[in-house]
Protein backbone atom coordinates (compact mmCIF):
# COMPACT_ATOMS: atom_id res chain seq x y z
CA UNK A 1 0.00 0.00 0.00
CA UNK A 2 1.47 3.37 -0.90
CA UNK A 3 1.39 6.35 1.38
CA UNK A 4 -1.39 8.10 -0.50
CA UNK A 5 -3.69 5.07 -0.21
CA UNK A 6 -3.60 5.13 3.55
CA UNK A 7 -6.96 5.61 5.22
CA UNK A 8 -7.16 8.91 7.06
CA UNK A 9 -8.19 8.64 10.70
CA UNK A 10 -10.54 9.79 12.17
CA UNK A 11 -12.69 8.54 9.27
CA UNK A 12 -14.95 11.31 8.04
CA UNK A 13 -18.66 10.56 8.04
CA UNK A 14 -21.54 12.50 6.51
CA UNK A 15 -24.52 11.54 8.64
CA UNK A 16 -24.31 12.53 12.31
CA UNK A 17 -26.07 9.45 13.67
CA UNK A 18 -24.92 6.77 11.17
CA UNK A 19 -21.67 4.77 11.30
CA UNK A 20 -19.10 5.35 8.53
CA UNK A 21 -19.41 2.68 5.80
CA UNK A 22 -15.75 1.79 6.35
CA UNK A 23 -16.38 0.19 9.77
CA UNK A 24 -18.03 -2.97 8.40
CA UNK A 25 -15.31 -3.41 5.83
CA UNK A 26 -12.52 -2.84 8.34
CA UNK A 27 -13.95 -5.31 10.85
CA UNK A 28 -14.57 -8.02 8.26
CA UNK A 29 -11.61 -7.61 5.91
CA UNK A 30 -8.95 -5.49 7.53
CA UNK A 31 -9.23 -5.76 11.32
CA UNK A 32 -5.65 -4.52 11.78
CA UNK A 33 -5.45 -1.53 9.42
CA UNK A 34 -2.80 1.05 8.67
CA UNK A 35 -4.07 4.61 8.99
CA UNK A 36 -2.74 8.17 8.88
CA UNK A 37 -3.60 10.54 11.74
CA UNK A 38 -4.18 14.30 11.55
CA UNK A 39 -0.52 14.72 12.60
CA UNK A 40 0.57 12.87 9.44
CA UNK A 41 1.92 10.05 11.63
CA UNK A 42 0.97 6.46 10.82
CA UNK A 43 -0.76 4.18 13.26
CA UNK A 44 -2.57 0.84 13.33
CA UNK A 45 -6.34 0.88 13.74
CA UNK A 46 -8.26 -1.97 15.39
CA UNK A 47 -12.05 -2.17 15.06
CA UNK A 48 -13.07 -5.67 16.25
CA UNK A 49 -14.50 -6.00 19.76
CA UNK A 50 -12.08 -8.73 20.86
CA UNK A 51 -9.02 -6.89 19.55
CA UNK A 52 -10.00 -3.56 21.12
CA UNK A 53 -10.73 -5.23 24.44
CA UNK A 54 -7.46 -7.22 24.31
CA UNK A 55 -5.31 -4.15 23.64
CA UNK A 56 -7.01 -1.93 26.21
CA UNK A 57 -6.95 -4.63 28.90
CA UNK A 58 -3.26 -5.49 28.47
CA UNK A 59 -1.49 -3.96 31.47
CA UNK A 60 1.81 -3.84 29.57
CA UNK A 61 0.68 -1.09 27.23
CA UNK A 62 0.31 2.61 27.97
CA UNK A 63 -0.45 5.68 25.86
CA UNK A 64 3.14 6.09 24.75
CA UNK A 65 3.31 9.58 26.19
CA UNK A 66 6.86 10.80 25.83
CA UNK A 67 7.91 7.97 23.48
CA UNK A 68 9.71 9.51 20.53
CA UNK A 69 8.30 7.08 17.97
CA UNK A 70 4.71 7.05 19.26
CA UNK A 71 2.18 8.47 16.77
CA UNK A 72 0.74 11.90 17.59
CA UNK A 73 -2.96 12.73 17.45
CA UNK A 74 -2.97 16.41 16.49
CA UNK A 75 -1.41 18.39 13.65
CA UNK A 76 0.62 20.48 16.09
CA UNK A 77 4.26 20.18 17.14
CA UNK A 78 3.61 18.37 20.42
CA UNK A 79 0.87 16.19 18.94
CA UNK A 80 -2.02 17.18 21.19
CA UNK A 81 -3.75 16.01 24.31
CA UNK A 82 -1.84 12.81 25.12
CA UNK A 83 1.49 14.64 25.04
CA UNK A 84 0.30 17.78 26.83
CA UNK A 85 2.08 18.78 30.02
CA UNK A 86 -1.12 17.97 31.92
CA UNK A 87 -1.02 14.38 30.64
CA UNK A 88 2.71 13.87 31.21
CA UNK A 89 2.64 15.10 34.83
CA UNK A 90 0.17 12.39 35.86
CA UNK A 91 1.59 8.91 36.50
CA UNK A 92 0.86 6.94 33.31
CA UNK A 93 1.26 3.32 34.29
CA UNK A 94 2.39 0.72 36.81
CA UNK A 95 2.41 1.26 40.55
CA UNK A 96 2.42 5.07 40.29
CA UNK A 97 -0.71 5.08 38.17
CA UNK A 98 -2.41 2.56 40.45
CA UNK A 99 -1.71 4.63 43.57
CA UNK A 100 -2.97 7.85 41.89
CA UNK A 101 -6.01 6.09 40.49
CA UNK A 102 -7.03 4.67 43.88
CA UNK A 103 -6.51 8.01 45.60
CA UNK A 104 -8.74 9.84 43.13
CA UNK A 105 -11.05 6.92 42.33
CA UNK A 106 -12.50 6.76 45.81
CA UNK A 107 -14.29 10.07 45.10
CA UNK A 108 -16.09 8.45 42.17
CA UNK A 109 -17.51 5.30 43.75
CA UNK A 110 -21.04 4.19 42.88
CA UNK A 111 -22.16 4.96 46.47
CA UNK A 112 -20.84 8.53 46.34
CA UNK A 113 -22.50 9.04 42.98
CA UNK A 114 -25.84 7.83 44.38
CA UNK A 115 -25.48 10.38 47.16
CA UNK A 116 -25.13 13.12 44.51
CA UNK A 117 -28.41 12.12 42.84
CA UNK A 118 -30.74 14.58 44.63
CA UNK A 119 -28.42 17.54 43.91
CA UNK A 120 -27.96 16.61 40.25
CA UNK A 121 -31.71 16.07 39.83
CA UNK A 122 -32.44 19.51 41.33
CA UNK A 123 -29.97 21.08 38.88
CA UNK A 124 -31.55 19.22 35.93
CA UNK A 125 -34.98 20.46 37.01
CA UNK A 126 -33.70 24.01 37.28
CA UNK A 127 -32.29 23.84 33.74
CA UNK A 128 -35.63 22.55 32.43
CA UNK A 129 -37.41 25.41 34.29
CA UNK A 130 -35.16 27.88 32.46
CA UNK A 131 -35.81 26.18 29.11
CA UNK A 132 -39.55 26.27 29.64
CA UNK A 133 -39.42 29.93 30.69
CA UNK A 134 -37.38 30.86 27.58
CA UNK A 135 -39.74 28.92 25.28
CA UNK A 136 -39.02 26.59 22.38
CA UNK A 137 -37.34 25.81 20.06
CA UNK A 138 -34.15 25.57 22.07
CA UNK A 139 -30.71 24.05 21.57
CA UNK A 140 -30.74 21.21 24.10
CA UNK A 141 -26.94 21.00 24.08
CA UNK A 142 -26.44 24.62 25.16
CA UNK A 143 -29.44 24.76 27.49
CA UNK A 144 -29.19 21.36 29.20
CA UNK A 145 -26.59 18.83 27.99
CA UNK A 146 -23.60 21.11 28.53
CA UNK A 147 -24.41 23.01 31.75
CA UNK A 148 -25.50 19.95 33.77
CA UNK A 149 -22.17 18.06 33.86
CA UNK A 150 -20.19 21.32 34.11
CA UNK A 151 -22.14 22.25 37.22
CA UNK A 152 -21.64 18.77 38.72
CA UNK A 153 -17.86 18.61 38.19
CA UNK A 154 -17.38 22.23 39.29
CA UNK A 155 -19.33 21.50 42.46
CA UNK A 156 -17.22 18.38 43.11
CA UNK A 157 -13.94 20.23 42.52
CA UNK A 158 -15.02 23.39 44.30
CA UNK A 159 -14.47 25.76 41.34
CA UNK A 160 -17.10 28.29 40.20
CA UNK A 161 -19.26 27.10 37.30
CA UNK A 162 -19.67 30.76 36.27
CA UNK A 163 -16.21 30.29 34.68
CA UNK A 164 -17.60 27.62 32.37
CA UNK A 165 -17.07 29.61 29.16
CA UNK A 166 -13.33 29.57 30.01
CA UNK A 167 -13.37 25.80 30.64
CA UNK A 168 -15.13 25.23 27.33
CA UNK A 169 -12.40 27.10 25.43
CA UNK A 170 -9.50 25.48 27.31
CA UNK A 171 -11.08 22.08 26.88
CA UNK A 172 -11.59 22.54 23.12
CA UNK A 173 -7.95 23.61 22.76
CA UNK A 174 -6.73 20.64 24.78
CA UNK A 175 -8.83 18.17 22.78
CA UNK A 176 -8.06 19.75 19.42
CA UNK A 177 -6.75 17.59 16.60
CA UNK A 178 -6.86 20.13 13.78
CA UNK A 179 -8.69 23.17 15.07
CA UNK A 180 -6.01 25.19 16.84
CA UNK A 181 -2.35 26.01 16.26
CA UNK A 182 0.43 24.93 18.59
CA UNK A 183 0.70 28.54 19.90
CA UNK A 184 -3.02 28.74 20.62
CA UNK A 185 -2.94 25.41 22.40
CA UNK A 186 0.13 26.36 24.45
CA UNK A 187 -1.36 29.73 25.45
CA UNK A 188 -4.59 28.13 26.47
CA UNK A 189 -2.89 25.36 28.45
CA UNK A 190 -0.79 27.88 30.29
CA UNK A 191 -3.88 29.94 31.24
CA UNK A 192 -5.72 26.82 32.31
CA UNK A 193 -2.73 25.62 34.39
CA UNK A 194 -2.44 29.02 36.10
CA UNK A 195 -6.18 29.06 36.80
CA UNK A 196 -6.12 25.63 38.44
CA UNK A 197 -2.87 26.34 40.35
CA UNK A 198 -4.55 29.45 41.77
CA UNK A 199 -7.53 27.38 42.90
CA UNK A 200 -5.30 24.79 44.56
CA UNK A 201 -3.54 27.67 46.39
CA UNK A 202 -6.90 29.03 47.56
CA UNK A 203 -7.88 25.59 48.86
CA UNK A 204 -4.58 25.26 50.72
CA UNK A 205 -5.40 28.47 52.59
CA UNK A 206 -9.00 27.56 53.21
CA UNK A 207 -10.24 23.99 52.80
CA UNK A 208 -13.74 23.53 51.45
CA UNK A 209 -16.11 20.60 51.14
CA UNK A 210 -14.72 19.50 47.77
CA UNK A 211 -12.42 17.03 46.06
CA UNK A 212 -9.44 19.39 45.58
CA UNK A 213 -9.44 20.24 49.29
CA UNK A 214 -9.57 16.56 50.19
CA UNK A 215 -6.81 15.65 47.73
CA UNK A 216 -4.48 18.26 49.28
CA UNK A 217 -4.58 16.30 52.54
CA UNK A 218 -4.82 12.83 51.02
CA UNK A 219 -1.88 10.44 51.06
CA UNK A 220 -1.24 7.23 49.16
CA UNK A 221 -0.74 3.78 50.72
CA UNK A 222 2.82 4.78 51.69
CA UNK A 223 1.70 8.00 53.36
CA UNK A 224 2.89 10.33 50.59
CA UNK A 225 0.79 13.34 49.57
CA UNK A 226 0.28 14.35 45.92
CA UNK A 227 2.78 16.91 44.59
CA UNK A 228 1.43 20.33 43.65
CA UNK A 229 1.99 19.64 39.94
CA UNK A 230 0.01 16.41 40.17
CA UNK A 231 -2.78 18.14 42.11
CA UNK A 232 -3.10 20.85 39.46
CA UNK A 233 -3.00 18.35 36.58
CA UNK A 234 -5.56 16.15 38.34
CA UNK A 235 -7.90 19.13 38.74
CA UNK A 236 -7.48 20.03 35.07
CA UNK A 237 -7.94 16.45 33.92
CA UNK A 238 -11.10 15.94 35.97
CA UNK A 239 -12.57 19.25 34.86
CA UNK A 240 -12.09 18.48 31.16
CA UNK A 241 -12.95 14.77 31.37
CA UNK A 242 -15.85 15.55 33.68
CA UNK A 243 -17.85 17.69 31.34
CA UNK A 244 -16.93 17.49 27.67
CA UNK A 245 -17.65 13.79 27.12
CA UNK A 246 -20.80 13.64 29.25
CA UNK A 247 -22.22 16.89 27.84
CA UNK A 248 -21.86 15.48 24.34
CA UNK A 249 -23.24 12.10 25.34
CA UNK A 250 -26.39 13.57 26.94
CA UNK A 251 -27.03 15.42 23.69
CA UNK A 252 -26.31 12.41 21.46
CA UNK A 253 -28.45 10.09 23.59
CA UNK A 254 -31.46 12.40 23.31
CA UNK A 255 -30.82 12.79 19.57
CA UNK A 256 -30.81 8.99 19.09
CA UNK A 257 -34.08 8.61 20.98
CA UNK A 258 -35.83 11.46 19.19
CA UNK A 259 -34.52 10.63 15.70
CA UNK A 260 -36.93 7.66 15.81
CA UNK A 261 -39.51 8.87 18.29
CA UNK A 262 -40.86 5.33 18.93
CA UNK A 263 -37.68 4.87 21.00
CA UNK A 264 -38.51 7.90 23.15
CA UNK A 265 -42.06 6.62 23.56
CA UNK A 266 -40.83 3.16 24.56
CA UNK A 267 -38.80 4.46 27.48
CA UNK A 268 -41.48 7.04 28.31
CA UNK A 269 -43.97 4.17 28.70
CA UNK A 270 -41.57 2.19 30.88
CA UNK A 271 -39.10 4.34 32.84
CA UNK A 272 -37.50 1.16 34.24
CA UNK A 273 -35.73 1.08 30.88
CA UNK A 274 -33.69 4.21 31.69
CA UNK A 275 -30.64 2.26 32.86
CA UNK A 276 -30.47 -0.10 29.86
CA UNK A 277 -31.31 2.81 27.52
CA UNK A 278 -28.31 4.77 28.77
CA UNK A 279 -26.01 1.76 28.27
CA UNK A 280 -27.40 1.12 24.79
CA UNK A 281 -26.96 4.78 23.81
CA UNK A 282 -23.32 4.54 24.96
CA UNK A 283 -22.85 1.40 22.85
CA UNK A 284 -24.69 2.75 19.82
CA UNK A 285 -22.85 6.10 19.66
CA UNK A 286 -21.13 6.38 16.28
CA UNK A 287 -19.69 9.79 17.01
CA UNK A 288 -17.56 8.96 20.04
CA UNK A 289 -14.42 10.76 18.89
CA UNK A 290 -10.89 9.54 18.39
CA UNK A 291 -10.89 6.40 20.55
CA UNK A 292 -7.92 5.34 22.67
CA UNK A 293 -4.27 4.92 21.76
CA UNK A 294 -1.82 2.34 23.04
CA UNK A 295 1.89 2.19 22.34
CA UNK A 296 2.78 -1.46 21.81
CA UNK A 297 6.28 -2.13 23.12
CA UNK A 298 6.15 -5.92 22.90
CA UNK A 299 5.03 -7.80 19.79
CA UNK A 300 1.44 -9.12 19.96
CA UNK A 301 -0.97 -10.88 17.63
CA UNK A 302 -4.40 -9.45 16.87
CA UNK A 303 -6.91 -11.30 14.64
CA UNK A 304 -4.02 -13.48 13.47
CA UNK A 305 -1.94 -10.46 12.40
CA UNK A 306 1.40 -9.81 14.06
CA UNK A 307 1.72 -6.30 15.48
CA UNK A 308 5.40 -5.42 15.96
CA UNK A 309 6.88 -3.64 18.95
CA UNK A 310 6.98 0.12 18.39
CA UNK A 311 3.49 0.28 16.87
CA UNK A 312 0.92 2.85 17.97
CA UNK A 313 -2.48 1.15 18.03
CA UNK A 314 -5.66 3.22 17.85
CA UNK A 315 -8.63 1.42 19.40
CA UNK A 316 -11.98 2.43 17.94
CA UNK A 317 -14.33 1.53 20.77
CA UNK A 318 -17.26 2.88 18.74
CA UNK A 319 -16.54 0.51 15.83
CA UNK A 320 -16.02 -2.38 18.29
CA UNK A 321 -19.39 -1.60 19.87
CA UNK A 322 -21.04 -2.31 16.49
CA UNK A 323 -19.28 -5.68 16.07
CA UNK A 324 -21.83 -8.40 15.24
CA UNK A 325 -19.44 -10.97 16.75
CA UNK A 326 -19.97 -9.36 20.17
CA UNK A 327 -23.51 -7.94 19.96
CA UNK A 328 -26.47 -9.70 18.39
CA UNK A 329 -28.19 -7.40 15.93
CA UNK A 330 -25.48 -4.82 16.59
CA UNK A 331 -26.90 -2.31 14.11
CA UNK A 332 -30.21 -2.17 15.99
CA UNK A 333 -30.74 0.16 18.96
CA UNK A 334 -32.30 -2.19 21.54
CA UNK A 335 -33.33 -0.32 24.68
CA UNK A 336 -33.70 -3.60 26.60
CA UNK A 337 -30.25 -5.03 25.72
CA UNK A 338 -28.84 -6.83 28.80
CA UNK A 339 -26.04 -7.47 29.51
CA UNK A 340 -24.37 -4.76 27.48
CA UNK A 341 -20.59 -5.07 27.83
CA UNK A 342 -19.86 -2.10 25.53
CA UNK A 343 -16.47 -0.45 25.47
CA UNK A 344 -17.57 3.20 25.52
CA UNK A 345 -15.60 3.74 28.75
CA UNK A 346 -12.67 1.61 27.60
CA UNK A 347 -11.52 -1.47 29.49
CA UNK A 348 -8.81 -2.54 31.90
CA UNK A 349 -6.72 -0.52 34.33
CA UNK A 350 -7.27 2.74 32.43
CA UNK A 351 -11.00 2.44 31.87
CA UNK A 352 -12.86 5.67 32.59
CA UNK A 353 -12.39 6.79 36.19
CA UNK A 354 -15.62 8.77 36.16
CA UNK A 355 -17.91 6.19 34.56
CA UNK A 356 -20.19 5.85 37.60
CA UNK A 357 -20.59 9.65 37.55
CA UNK A 358 -21.24 9.69 33.80
CA UNK A 359 -23.85 6.93 34.11
CA UNK A 360 -25.55 8.74 36.98
CA UNK A 361 -25.66 12.03 35.05
CA UNK A 362 -26.96 10.36 31.89
CA UNK A 363 -29.67 8.51 33.83
CA UNK A 364 -30.77 11.66 35.66
CA UNK A 365 -30.72 13.72 32.45
CA UNK A 366 -32.98 11.20 30.73
CA UNK A 367 -35.30 10.71 33.74
CA UNK A 368 -35.73 14.46 34.11
CA UNK A 369 -36.46 15.12 30.43
CA UNK A 370 -38.98 12.23 30.30
CA UNK A 371 -40.74 13.46 33.44
CA UNK A 372 -40.74 17.17 32.63
CA UNK A 373 -40.96 17.26 28.81
CA UNK A 374 -42.71 14.06 27.68
CA UNK A 375 -43.69 15.69 24.38
CA UNK A 376 -40.06 16.49 23.50
CA UNK A 377 -39.23 16.21 19.78
CA UNK A 378 -36.60 17.31 17.29
CA UNK A 379 -37.14 20.79 15.85
CA UNK A 380 -35.17 19.85 12.70
CA UNK A 381 -34.94 16.71 10.57
CA UNK A 382 -32.52 14.17 12.06
CA UNK A 383 -30.47 14.23 8.85
CA UNK A 384 -29.85 17.95 9.36
CA UNK A 385 -27.93 17.32 12.59
CA UNK A 386 -24.20 17.97 12.22
CA UNK A 387 -21.09 16.66 13.95
CA UNK A 388 -18.43 18.67 15.72
CA UNK A 389 -15.18 18.14 13.80
CA UNK A 390 -11.53 18.44 14.69
CA UNK A 391 -11.73 17.48 18.36
CA UNK A 392 -10.69 14.21 20.01
CA UNK A 393 -14.15 14.00 21.64
CA UNK A 394 -17.13 13.57 19.33
CA UNK A 395 -20.44 15.37 19.56
CA UNK A 396 -23.23 17.19 17.76
CA UNK A 397 -22.83 20.91 17.12
CA UNK A 398 -26.36 21.53 18.39
CA UNK A 399 -29.66 19.76 19.05
CA UNK A 400 -32.70 21.96 18.31
CA UNK A 401 -35.79 20.61 20.13
CA UNK A 402 -39.35 21.64 20.98
CA UNK A 403 -42.10 20.17 23.19
Amino acid at each position, binding site marked *: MTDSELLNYPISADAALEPPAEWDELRSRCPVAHVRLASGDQATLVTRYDDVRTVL*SDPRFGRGTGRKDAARVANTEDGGVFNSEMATVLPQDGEGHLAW*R*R*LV*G*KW*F*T*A*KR*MSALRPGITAMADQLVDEMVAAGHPVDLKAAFGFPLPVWVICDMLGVPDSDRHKFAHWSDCLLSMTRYTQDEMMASMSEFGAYMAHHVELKRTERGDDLLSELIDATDADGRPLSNDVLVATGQGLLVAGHETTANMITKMVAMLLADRSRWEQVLADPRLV*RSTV*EEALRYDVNAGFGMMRYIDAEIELSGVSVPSGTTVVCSMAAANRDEAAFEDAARLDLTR*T*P*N*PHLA*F*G*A*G*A*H*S*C*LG*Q*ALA*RTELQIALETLLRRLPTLELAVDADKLTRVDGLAVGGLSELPVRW
Partner: protein
Amino acid sequence: MKVTVDEDKCCGAGTCVLVAPDVFDQRDEDGIVMLLDEAPAADQHDAVREAASVCPAAAILVAEA
Protein backbone atom coordinates in the same frame (compact mmCIF):
# COMPACT_ATOMS: atom_id res chain seq x y z
CA MET B 1 -23.43 -19.89 42.37
CA LYS B 2 -20.04 -18.92 43.78
CA VAL B 3 -18.60 -15.44 43.18
CA THR B 4 -14.96 -14.39 43.48
CA VAL B 5 -13.36 -11.01 42.85
CA ASP B 6 -9.77 -10.07 41.93
CA GLU B 7 -8.87 -6.92 43.87
CA ASP B 8 -5.61 -6.49 41.96
CA LYS B 9 -7.41 -6.33 38.63
CA CYS B 10 -10.27 -4.12 39.91
CA CYS B 11 -10.12 -0.57 38.53
CA GLY B 12 -12.80 0.80 40.87
CA ALA B 13 -15.27 1.71 38.13
CA GLY B 14 -18.23 0.78 40.34
CA THR B 15 -20.13 -0.83 37.47
CA CYS B 16 -20.88 -3.94 39.58
CA VAL B 17 -22.30 -1.83 42.42
CA LEU B 18 -24.64 -0.04 40.04
CA VAL B 19 -25.88 -3.39 38.66
CA ALA B 20 -25.94 -5.58 41.80
CA PRO B 21 -25.71 -3.42 44.95
CA ASP B 22 -26.75 -6.30 47.22
CA VAL B 23 -23.74 -8.35 46.20
CA PHE B 24 -20.99 -5.79 45.51
CA ASP B 25 -19.76 -2.63 47.19
CA GLN B 26 -16.62 -0.47 47.01
CA ARG B 27 -14.18 0.30 49.82
CA ASP B 28 -14.39 3.90 50.98
CA GLU B 29 -10.61 4.31 51.10
CA ASP B 30 -9.76 3.40 47.50
CA GLY B 31 -12.92 2.44 45.60
CA ILE B 32 -11.85 -1.19 45.18
CA VAL B 33 -14.54 -3.88 45.04
CA MET B 34 -15.88 -5.55 48.18
CA LEU B 35 -17.79 -8.80 47.83
CA LEU B 36 -20.78 -8.67 50.16
CA ASP B 37 -22.13 -12.10 49.35
CA GLU B 38 -20.01 -14.82 47.77
CA ALA B 39 -22.99 -17.20 47.45
CA PRO B 40 -25.86 -14.92 46.42
CA ALA B 41 -29.47 -16.10 46.42
CA ALA B 42 -31.12 -17.16 43.17
CA ASP B 43 -32.93 -13.83 42.70
CA GLN B 44 -29.51 -12.14 42.43
CA HIS B 45 -28.01 -14.48 39.84
CA ASP B 46 -28.98 -12.52 36.74
CA ALA B 47 -27.66 -9.27 38.19
CA VAL B 48 -24.39 -10.96 39.25
CA ARG B 49 -23.88 -12.46 35.78
CA GLU B 50 -24.52 -9.05 34.26
CA ALA B 51 -22.08 -7.40 36.69
CA ALA B 52 -19.39 -9.95 35.76
CA SER B 53 -19.93 -9.50 32.04
CA VAL B 54 -19.84 -5.68 32.12
CA CYS B 55 -16.90 -5.35 34.54
CA PRO B 56 -14.34 -3.27 32.58
CA ALA B 57 -11.44 -5.06 34.26
CA ALA B 58 -12.89 -8.60 34.06
CA ALA B 59 -12.27 -8.79 37.80
CA ILE B 60 -15.42 -10.78 38.73
CA LEU B 61 -15.55 -14.55 38.32
CA VAL B 62 -18.78 -16.51 38.58
CA ALA B 63 -18.79 -20.27 39.06
CA GLU B 64 -22.23 -21.71 38.39
CA ALA B 65 -23.16 -24.51 40.79
